[in-house]
């Protein structure tokens, strides 16, 4: 006899006994039955069906004996009622947690907020969209008195709240760098020391740090394991990778970073991104670099912010609006 049949027989016994003399003991057995059925995931409608079958087998369609049968049914369903209320209350708790995370996400936005610098020669655009509520991507602009524009783009390995907490630390160590101009390699070396000391050994950060000198129109950059950016040459209409290799932040405190430079002419575009852009996955697999460049090329004549928005829309569409990773794209376009 299967488990269902055993339950069915047991129910019939209880019911028969209760219909005989409406005893409290049968009701207690019903309560125990209820507990068992919840434990074995018997659904409420199955209970009703068990009840009906039992009634039919007991040939008790006559109304006077049918009435007490509902006491049994009520007792059995009581457990389900309690389980349902508990579910409701857990849902409330879940809602509360969700709204707390929303508050935290807003706080993150405020804490990490950065202003896009306003310089005559550059048109700058940026978009950053978290895959979940809190982003593990981070970008930051700094403009110094001599007119250089610095940009940092970082990806914290790991997502959600732990990554967000880690990011606040990065932000504050960047803010507390001593005054004055910093070469990209110096910034990475000093952040690397902070991360190496303070972060959980399985948590790592990739960062690309670039500085645009508005006087000689040269872009200086260093990378700590970050996804390479792209450079668009307006004259040749060609894209090239902004190649820069360097170890992730936080692996080895003695790491030295190499600095690269690139001359930027009017119309040239620098594109920096997180791996959510290049690791964009679709049903058919990863998008190829050429596909990505194709999208960028399609919109390269637009204003920087427009390029960023349009490329994001295309990739969002490609992924069926389900981001697997945080997405950040920064565009610097020399306009004069």
């Amino acid at each position: 006899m299967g488990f269902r049949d055993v339950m069915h027989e047991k129910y019939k016994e209880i019911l028969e006994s209760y219909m005989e003399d409406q005893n409290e003991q049968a009701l207690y057995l019903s309560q125990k039955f209820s507990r068992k059925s919840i434990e074995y995931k018997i659904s409420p409608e199955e209970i009703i069906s068990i009840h009906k079958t039992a009634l039919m087998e007991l040939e008790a369609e006559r109304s006077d004996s049918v009435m007490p049968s509902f006491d049994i049914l009520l007792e059995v369903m009581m457990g389900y009622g309690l389980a349902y209320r508990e579910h409701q209350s857990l849902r409330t708790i879940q809602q509360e947690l969700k709204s707390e995370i929303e508050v935290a996400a807003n706080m993150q936005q405020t804490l990490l907020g950065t202003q896009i610098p306003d310089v005559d020669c550059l048109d700058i655009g940026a978009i950053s969209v978290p895959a979940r509520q809190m982003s593990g991507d981070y970008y930051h602009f700094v403009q110094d008195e001599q007119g250089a524009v610095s940009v940092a783009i970082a990806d914290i390995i790991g997502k959600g709240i732990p990554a967000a907490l880690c990011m606040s630390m990065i932000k504050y160590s960047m803010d507390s760098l001593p005054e004055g101009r910093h070469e990209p390699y110096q910034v990475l070396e000093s952040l690397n020391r902070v991360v190496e000391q303070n972060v959980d050994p399985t948590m790592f950060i990739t960062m690309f740090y670039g500085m645009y000198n508005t006087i000689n129109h040269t872009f200086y950059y260093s990378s700590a394991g970050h996804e390479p950016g792209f450079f668009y040459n307006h004259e040749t209409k060609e894209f090239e990778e902004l190649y820069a290799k360097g170890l992730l932040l936080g692996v080895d405190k003695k790491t030295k970073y190499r600095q690269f430079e690139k001359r930027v002419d009017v119309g040239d575009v620098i594109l920096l991104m997180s791996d959510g852009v290049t690791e964009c996955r679709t049903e058919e697999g990863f998008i190829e670099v050429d596909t990505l460049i194709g999208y960028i090329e399609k919109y390269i004549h637009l204003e920087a912010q427009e390029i960023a928005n349009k490329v994001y829309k295309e990739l969002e569409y490609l992924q069926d609006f389900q981001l697997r990773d945080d997405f950040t794209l920064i565009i610097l376009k020399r306009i004069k």
Partner: protein
Amino acid sequence: MNITIDVKEMEQYTKVKIVGEIDAYTAPKLRETIFPYAEKKNTKIVIDLSEVSYMDSTGLGVFVGLFKSLNANEGTLQLTGLSERLRRLFDITGLADIMNINSEVEGGV
């Protein structure tokens, strides 16, 4: 998204074969399975990644953690069979320079 991790303790090294995808969902399982071996003294771990179709940054984090843990315990880590995509990931992050990647295993595998 599934992963199978096969660990064999051989005479000279611990051989690990991973099949599947290494991402935020499977990384914890990978970490739990391999880390205990890395905490022993003088261990040599060889990981075959030839059947890993995808790895994201969380997966990379597991390998960096493993590398650091082995280094602290005088052990070594060797990764083999990386696809071009995986190889690129280790290149960009600078890990290819400090880790032993895609070289021949002594005595052959």
